[in-house]
């Protein structure tokens, strides 16, 4: 079937109408919906864990294992801003509580912060640091561009 060439006027009208209707209802916008599988991937995938371990290792090395210095260093790295006092206190509390938990129930497999050099990191503390970095990399402030 050969398409019939529309007259310039009707083509213009058709284009105009299409643009009008599309512009108002459903221009092909990029899909921005959040789905659960995204959350599961960022929380539980081995890839996400590898990134969290790398970040934890980087902070551990840079701050020589000092948690409050690591928190102060993490915020500019991850969120491009300074940490607030409340956030620092929250981070330290989280790290302490998690280390205590991991001491009671050791991690199922060892996955210390990577790139930590020769320094031996106690498994419970290492797991807490990795978990903390995983939380930072899952935070909306990191995932979304303002």
């Amino acid at each position, binding site marked *: 079937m050969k398409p019939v060439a529309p007259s310039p006027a009707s083509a213009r009208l058709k284009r105009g109408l299409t643009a*009008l*209707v599309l*512009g*108002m*209802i*459903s*221009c092909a*916008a990029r*899909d*921005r*919906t*959040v*789905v*659960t*599988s*995204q*959350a*599961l*991937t960022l*929380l*539980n*995938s*081995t890839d996400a*864990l590898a990134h969290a371990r790398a970040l934890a290792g980087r902070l551990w090395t840079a701050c020589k294992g000092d948690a409050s210095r690591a928190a102060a260093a993490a915020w500019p790295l991850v969120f491009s801003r300074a940490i607030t006092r409340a*956030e620092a206190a*929250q981070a330290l509390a*989280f790290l302490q*509580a*998690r280390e205590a*938990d*991991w001491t009671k*129930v*050791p*991690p*199922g*497999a*060892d*996955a210390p912060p990577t790139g930590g050099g020769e320094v031996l990191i106690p498994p419970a503390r290492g*797991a807490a640091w*990795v*978990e*903390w970095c*995983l*939380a*930072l990399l*899952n*935070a*909306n*402030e990191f*995932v*979304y561009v*303002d």
Partner: protein
Amino acid sequence: MWTETKSSLLSRRDWLRHAGGGLGSLALTSLLARAGWLHAAEPPAAANPLAPRPPHFPAKAKAVIHLFRHGGPSHVDTFDPKPALTKLNGQPPPEEFHQLKLPFTDVKKQKLLGSRQSFSRGGRSGVEICDSLPQLQQCADELCVIRSMHHAVFNHTPAIWFLNTGSALPGRASLGAWLAYGLGNVADNLPSFVVMHTRPLKPGPGVWGNGFLPAVYQGTRIGTGPMAIPNLSPPPQLRGSNQRALLDYLQDLNRSHAAQRHDYELDARIASYELAYRRQSAAPEAVDINREVLRCFRWPSGRPSRWRRG
């Protein structure tokens, strides 16, 4: 219109819509509503796009199982006998079909292939079913066979699109996505639309996709075994301890971040983490067939005893 928080700035798209199409879209919306188009399917609330919504008519079914059998036996060989085709087996198509334009095919040069199956009527309804399915013939009255559907899609891939989304071209929402959109989800911790397949389908995962609907309505693929849903449980390094603690910390970060902004998407993401957490505990149980009770395998009416398991 302009405020200090960056995230509440209008996007270019929003600005164009508000500035250019504001009045027009209002008029259109009201026209569509009057015509009953918008009334039928109110867009789901931003808060929970999966909140259950009542159907327009009382529901007769609680669940739908749609088996799409890629490469399965044809309708001509199973439920849809074609006596004329059988008669013309091995002959070229009658002249009236020669004008038919099919891709990659010259109709005149083809030969017709009739079914080699014989058919018998089963049950009180007298539905014709091929004799290779004698047990199904006994259940004829439990079946509803639709023979009135036809289409003009000749090739495999467009046909798969057509059957699953209603359009031979990619980009439409699948039937399951429409159901999730229209009815929501009655299960809090489980997806309403799940997909199982042995091998990936030719056209790709879009076959159970959301098309132009929000992504939350797409099918969730589940496999078999302990990792039926990918990334459902933490990696072994972080397993065995209280993941709730991590989530609580994360949600604290997210809530104070969201408090400074007005963005439904951030709320949706916070909610999606909660759903992900609940799903972690509910989903493994749902896909574990070993915990299935035996009576589920019995035919509801208890009639054909050979349907029973074991």
